[in-house]
């Protein structure tokens, strides 16, 4: 191996000194997520009426390969219905640790009620805190359980460490 | 059968009629008598109440619901009371082409009742029915059992006006000839603008 080769190699190294660093300064700088990335689930509502789209048919539970979803349905109160139609999900729980984010539930859902969003900052301390219930997933809730917990304690609002392509259905519904 | 206690049985005093009707059918075919019995009641009371259904069921050995099923199958039986003059407007194709829909709308606005309703003083009731078999001379109104064919606005007004005086007019014979077109055109949507009927 000649000196020339070493110089060549060092040249490459030196050359990199003058390139911009590729490091993404996460969390200060937000990570970019592709639009089709599958993160934490959202339960959607009908934009016009604000009723939940979920009808508690538990087809998602049937489709889930990890058995991470548990649904218990009940009959709607005709006066103030929770969802459109006769039936709604009284209990809707997903064990985020079981979930493998395969998106089968999304495909199985007949009403398009459940959609996998972009949130991946789900790390938490206790196993039992990973069972996400309806209030943790209904559209409009921002951040993971821990993030909302922390934000509540600190009195700040949740800052999500990512940016993604537009997902209009996940923007929440004002009604 | 609460009604049975309140309402006296219809066939209580018509034993011979009952025997005659039941006599038409063999014993094992007793059920067949349900139709003539229903017709008797319908003719006498102009509708078949639930009490009557139960009574007929008792007679022919069917349960009331089954009799109701038979009755509701045929449009000439009525579950609720109808008016003194039951106007049935044919709504099948040829009458509809001849303007029976407009006729019906006209009657609705004139009498203030819609399909299956009875007006306040129980005089008129209105019903849209399928073909009355008078296709050549539509539009047709059947008042109780009499046909009134080629009904035009003027004729309709006359008819209603007469009926409200409790005079049942003679059904005019459906003339051919020149004014046929006029009568028919009367209710034809695309030829008649609003109020044009009065000019004739």
């Amino acid at each position, binding site marked *: 191996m000649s000196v020339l080769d070493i110089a060549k190699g060092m040249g490459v190294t030196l050359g990199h000194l003058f390139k911009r660093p590729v490091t993404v300064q996460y*969390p200060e700088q937000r990570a970019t997520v592709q639009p089709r990335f599958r993160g934490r689930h959202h339960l959607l509502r009908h934009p016009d009426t604000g009723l939940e789209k979920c009808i508690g048919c538990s087809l998602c539970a049937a489709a889930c390969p*990890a058995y991470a979803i548990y649904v218990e349905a009940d009959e709607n109160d005709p006066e103030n219905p929770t969802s459109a139609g006769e039936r709604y999900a009284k209990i809707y729980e997903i064990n985020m640790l079981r979930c*493998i984010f395969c998106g089968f539930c999304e495909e199985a859902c007949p009403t398009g009620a459940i959609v996998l969003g972009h949130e991946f900052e789900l790390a938490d301390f206790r196993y039992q805190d*990973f069972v996400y219930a309806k209030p943790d997933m209904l559209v409009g809730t921002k951040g993971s359980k821990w993030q909302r917990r922390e934000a509540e304690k600190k009195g700040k609002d949740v800052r999500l460490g990512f940016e993604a392509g537009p997902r209009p259905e996940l923007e929440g519904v004002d009604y | 059968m609460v009604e049975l206690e309140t309402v006296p049985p219809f066939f209580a005093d018509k034993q011979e009629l009952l025997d005659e009707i039941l006599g038409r059918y063999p014993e094992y075919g007793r059920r067949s008598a349900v139709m003539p019995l229903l017709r008797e009641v319908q003719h006498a009371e102009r509708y078949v109440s639930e009490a009557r259904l139960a009574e007929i069921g008792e007679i022919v050995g069917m349960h009331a619901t089954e009799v109701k099923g038979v009755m509701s199958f045929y449009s000439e039986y009525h579950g609720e009371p109808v008016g003194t003059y039951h106007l049935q407007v044919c709504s099948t194709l040829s009458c509809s082409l001849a303007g029976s829909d407009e006729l019906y709308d006209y009657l609705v606005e004139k009498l203030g009742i819609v399909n299956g309703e009875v007006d306040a003083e129980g005089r008129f009731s209105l019903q849209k029915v399928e073909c009355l078999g008078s296709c050549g001379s539509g539009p047709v109104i059947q008042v109780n059992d009499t046909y009134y064919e080629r009904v035009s606005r003027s004729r309709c007004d006359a008819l209603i006006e007469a009926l409200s005086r409790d005079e049942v007019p003679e059904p005019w014979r459906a003339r051919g000839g020149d004014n046929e077109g006029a009568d028919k055109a009367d209710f034809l949507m695309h030829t008649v603008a609003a109020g044009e009927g009065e000019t004739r």
Partner: protein
Amino acid sequence: MGLRDLFEKDVQELENEGILFSSLEKLVAWGRSNSLWPATFGLACCAIEMMQSTNARNDMSRFGSEVFRASPRQADVMIVAGRLSKKMAPIMRRVYEQMPDPKWVISMGACASSGGMFNNYAIVQNVDSVVPVDIFVPGCPPRPEALVYAVMQLQKKVRGEAFDQQGVELPMVEGWSR
């Protein structure tokens, strides 16, 4: 300001003037939290993402945990990345035992944390049943940022800022509470 102020003013006021009061414990915790050296325990696909988390793009050394130690003797935190088979469990336990206190465990990915979709006889259904887990990271696999986020979580825990859903303060090291 003069020396007298130190005795006259109360702590809050001094802190406002920029004089820091810190207990040694806090200082130590701050030091530990910023030098969390992982012991590699890559078991499956999650390990690939774990490697990614140290590469140039999202480089975990920004948080002082760049050096993955092949020897548990020099490691502070064990990142269990991937599904743990029952045969592997005792080995992992030994590696954990060999790590010097204080030591932490990150359970990375669905399989490590709950068995994921491998709900069968061969897979440990939660690493927590073998070693005390400090942080669970959902995902299949979690993207590198998720692991970085987990390390940040761990730092919070080491600094004693962690609490669970019921608001209970969590111990600095999970292993100590067992």
